């Protein structure tokens, strides 16, 4: 409940604050009542879609991170680790270099790149079934390998890849209804699939042997979850770029508040992820007006210290309270 409230509040705040401040009541009027006027066009054409994109991206990345941390049984797992982000980055860079004038190719290309990388990593770490640690390690190796390729491309074609900065840190600049329409079906399908799988992921947390004893098809469950996570992450990455940290920290924060039962953890972290993304984007738009920072920078700047705080003290305090 609290999480849902936070998400709505974050949505309104994000719509209200910007280069032109618009009061909350005006925001509500603009969304529900007015059909034209300045406020209406700012709110409806620019801020609402952008905020919705931020929220959807937050949902996708948080769910993806939560799934991966569970499946890999590794608290450091996140979409960046399984190579989704780097795969998308490579595909996007190549697209920018080869077809600089075709902006609309960027998203599908990133999607394909992300998905292909996940499949490659999945098969590289396949040997007698998937072992979570092997997958994390292959992911890291593939990610750095792809990172090297991206950087090489950047050195050879410095003039063609100005847009890539936004892509490599993650940016929400000029995201509109088109992007939201592209994103929401994946977010919705991913969310439903994740919720259906949540009980199975709980059982997977008890270890392969217990899960097997309880009659769970371990390999199939793991594969569905990984595909689900990479779809979610790939759709987010294809719209906003290689945004880090959301997928890593949101599941952790939620776990501290809600506990590790995935049936509750998933919906809560979806809402929290959406809220955090919307707030961070609001900060990114407004903190050094009129210049707009990519949201990825704010995410990392706010996320990293907060995460360190949780690691140092927050976890312990939480355990004592219980």
């Amino acid at each position, binding site marked *: 409940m609290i999480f849902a409230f936070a998400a709505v509040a974050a949505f309104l705040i994000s719509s209200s604050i910007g280069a032109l401040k618009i009061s909350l009541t005006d925001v509500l009027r603009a969304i529900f009542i007015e059909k034209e006027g300045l406020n209406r066009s700012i709110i409806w054409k620019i801020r609402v879609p952008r905020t919705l994109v931020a929220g959807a991206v937050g949902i996708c990345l948080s769910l993806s991170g939560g799934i991966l941390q569970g499946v890999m049984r590794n608290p450091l797992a996140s979409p960046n680790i399984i190579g989704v982000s780097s795969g998308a980055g490579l595909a996007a860079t190549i697209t920018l270099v080869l077809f600089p004038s075709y902006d609309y190719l960027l998203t599908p290309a990133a999607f394909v790149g992300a998905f292909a990388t996940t499949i490659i990593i999945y098969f590289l770490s396949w040997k*007698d079934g998937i072992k979570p640690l092997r997958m994390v390690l292959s992911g890291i190796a593939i990610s750095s390998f792809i990172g090297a390729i991206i950087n090489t491309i950047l050195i050879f074609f410095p003039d063609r890849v100005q847009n890539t900065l936004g892509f490599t840190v993650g940016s929400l600049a000029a995201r509109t209804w088109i992007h939201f329409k592209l994103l929401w079906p994946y977010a919705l399908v991913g969310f439903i699939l994740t919720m*259906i799988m949540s*009980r199975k992921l*709980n*059982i997977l*947390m*008890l*270890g*392969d*042997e*217990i899960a*097997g*004893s*309880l*009659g*769970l*098809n371990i390999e199939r469950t793991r594969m569905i979850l990984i595909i689900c996570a990479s779809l979610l992450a790939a759709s987010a990455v294809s719209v906003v770029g290689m945004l880090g940290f959301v997928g890593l920290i949101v599941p952790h924060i939620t776990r501290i508040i809600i*506990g*590790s*039962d995935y049936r509750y953890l998933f919906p809560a972290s979806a809402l929290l992820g959406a809220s955090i993304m919307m707030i961070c984007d609001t900060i990114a738009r407004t903190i050094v007006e009129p210049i707009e920072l990519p949201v990825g920078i704010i995410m990392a700047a706010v996320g990293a210290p907060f995460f360190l705080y949780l690691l140092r003290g927050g976890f312990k305090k939480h*355990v004592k309270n*219980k």
Partner: protein
Amino acid sequence: MLKINNLTMGYEGIRILDNISFEVEKNKITTLIGPNGCGKSTILKALSRAKKPESGEILLESEDIYKVNEKTIAKIMSILPQSPKVPDDFSARDLVGYGRYPYMNWMGRLTKKDYDIIDWAIKETKIESLQHRQVSTMSGGERQRAWIAMALAQQPQLLLLDEPTTYLDICHQFEVLELVERLNKEMDITVVMVLHDLNQAARYSDKIIVVKDEKIYKEGKPEEIINKKLLEEVFDIRVKIFKDEDNDCPYFLPIKNKERNIYKNKRPFEKCS
């Protein structure tokens, strides 16, 4: 109940089990013993489908466990590995609830019947007063009882336990073994377990299977197994055998062996335990 035919298994090219076959009788307690690295835990891994055999078949009520639906097997057979993991904040009751997983539909709702069985499993393992505690905060003996309660909630006919007494002090070791014995006698649950303590194996088992050097060395009743010759050949210990009149089973005390060569049985790969 359970039939293992020509099972061959290995890790990364190293043979662990070579063409072994044995049978588990219904309503009996069968115990696997053997030196470290002999493959007894690997047998349980194959039975729990955690590790696929290279060749051979495992028949549960004459059906191949790798061909039958997983949930169907989970309703008949439950497996407790050696040190199972659990997320920090799961309560014992949550855990026992997961034992009902094989009976759930895809919606995953627990019915009145499920709750009754969860209560029953909690009562049988005497963890009523602990059921809302987090499993991670429990002592070793309590935790083992919580896991057994989860296995009971599966309503199995066959229970597989991998060294259920490891890391427990002597009082809790007997507590767990007596619980297992009661499940066998009162609820007719067939039990297969791996034990390290041979005297405990002799006291609680109907049948003992000795595994050594990738093969089944011998199988039989405790009094056929616990003898000087076998213990010296398999475990490299010299012993004195006594008869436990109270429990009607043999027991032994090791005696000092000056000639023992500790390197003789050392094997370069993964430990059994």
